[in-house]
């Protein structure tokens, strides 16, 4: 017990408390590090900072649209591979591959594919006579193509979790339904899907929590651009705090973002309990 608790106290709990302190301070790196308590100025500045609220709305879009798409695709693929068809193992192993690829590398791979003139996607579009797209250079579209990258990367995780969930459904339920004359859609709608709800909630929550931290692929895909159209809170805090070395303000952004995330997930959890969809722990 003790070593684990000590490590967490030093490298997680203390930095967390320290960040709160920093957000009420004035930190200067000029002529050695100096930290002075300052009051709520950083927080006042943050509340009036349109760039912060922009990053919050970006991450909200990123998480909601991204996770929904990942869930729909992951569920479809898991259902397709529930059938005992030749090549099932091969497809499973192949579909799981993206999970383990370094996020930064995924960003780089898609950066090449999205390239306006030499990229594969525009090459395919123009060869079938469609107009080309400036994937990452258009402020209105860039976020959607960033999301597409995340869907490519993490749909496999949902697929993996739901495949495990599907294996937990007793075959006898489905046989009974079949004898009663349920067609395949009815079997999915009334038996498989309800049985999958706990796993689905766990998978969606897990992905949402992870997605809210998003910055690694973004760092290389757009760097938050064009302008600030794809900037997420983590990237904004990084750029302010550790690129421009406004450490106190970076800490404030990070802390404010964490408070919002915490409130959001507590509310979500309350809603889930409200609808009696618990049993998450043993899902």
């Amino acid at each position, binding site marked *: 017990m003790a070593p684990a608790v000590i490590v967490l106290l030093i490298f997680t709990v203390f930095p967390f408390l320290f960040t709160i302190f920093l957000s009420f301070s004035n930190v200067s790196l000029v002529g050695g590090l100096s930290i002075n308590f300052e009051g709520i100025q950083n927080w006042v500045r943050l509340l009036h900072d349109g760039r912060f609220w922009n990053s919050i709305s970006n991450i909200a879009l990123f998480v909601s649209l991204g996770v929904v798409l990942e869930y729909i695709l992951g569920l479809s693929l898991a259902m397709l591979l529930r059938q005992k068809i030749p090549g099932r193992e091969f497809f499973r192993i192949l579909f799981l591959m993206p999970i383990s690829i370094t996020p930064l590398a995924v960003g780089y*791979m898609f950066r090449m594919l999205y390239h306006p003139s030499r990229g594969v996607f525009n090459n395919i579009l123009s060869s079938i006579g469609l107009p080309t797209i400036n994937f990452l250079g258009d402020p209105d579209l860039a976020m959607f193509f960033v999301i597409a990258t995340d869907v490519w990367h993490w749909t496999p995780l949902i697929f993996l979790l739901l495949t495990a969930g599907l294996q937990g459904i007793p075959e006898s339920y489905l046989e009974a339904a079949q004898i009663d004359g349920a067609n395949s859609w009815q079997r999915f709608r009334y038996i498989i899907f309800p049985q999958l709800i706990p796993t689905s909630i766990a998978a969606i929550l897990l992905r949402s929590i992870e997605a809210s931290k998003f910055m690694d692929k973004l760092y290389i895909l757009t760097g938050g651009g064009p302008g600030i159209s794809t900037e997420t809170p983590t990237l904004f805090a990084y750029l302010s705090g550790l690129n421009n070395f406004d*450490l106190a303000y970076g800490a404030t952004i990070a802390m404010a973002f964490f408070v919002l995330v915490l409130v959001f997930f507590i509310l979500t959890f309350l809603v889930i309990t409200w609808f009696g969809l618990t049993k998450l722990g043993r899902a």
Partner: protein
Amino acid sequence: MVPRKVRLTLTYIILIFWSFMVLLPIYWLFTTSFKTRGAVIGGTKYLPWAQFKPTIQPWINIIEEETLVLSLTNTAVIASISAFLALLFGTMAAYGLSRYKFHFGFFQNRDIMIWIISQRMMPPIVTAIALFIMLKWFNLLDTRIGLIMVYVAFNLPIAVWLMENFFSQIPETLEEAARIDGASRLQIFGRIVLPLAMPGLVATFFLCFVFGWNQFLFALTLTWRNARTLPVLIAAQHAQAGPQWWRISAMTVVTIVPPIIISTYVREHLVKGVVTTNK
């Protein structure tokens, strides 16, 4: 009802389409790492030999460079030592949590567990800035030791959670039997519990290793030259004007291959572990 043949054909069309989507970026990365400057700049070339002449020049270039070798060593050393320490501390904590009852006022085992896991839910940026200042105090910025310590804390929650799961699957009756036969606590742990938990230990180690290998934000914040890891190296290459895609691609291949191999291996192990402990 849709005829079986139609349904099967549709299934395969979708599966093959998704396989194609999965493979395209990976294929593109591998082929680009064998292209010359001309083949990259001169348009979109798909097929080696037919459309462009493959060359191993980018590979020779990156292997000759000291920065890549240094980053590769850094990443391997930092990921493996931090995974080992996370596993060591995590196993101790998990075994304690699964076999003894703790009370800190109203704070009990389950609360401790939730507290530990919740550390992982916090966005890393929340601690990154504070860690930057802390490591600066101790002169540990841009050192392997600094990053290792941060990664241990980063991986610990996962290690505790996974190992607790594995330990709780080992029947306590086995340990009781050993105790009656006069085995000490250490003997019980070393001779009975650890061997049974071996698949779990291996899987947890490699999972932490992959997390450490792929970690970006902490590495970007806390290292820049001497302890720079592969993801940070690639990011730095890309930031340059007119990035040399062929070179970066070769570096990226070096970065992604170990986690892919390890994950495939671990998945086997995890599956076996679950199967053997459930029987």
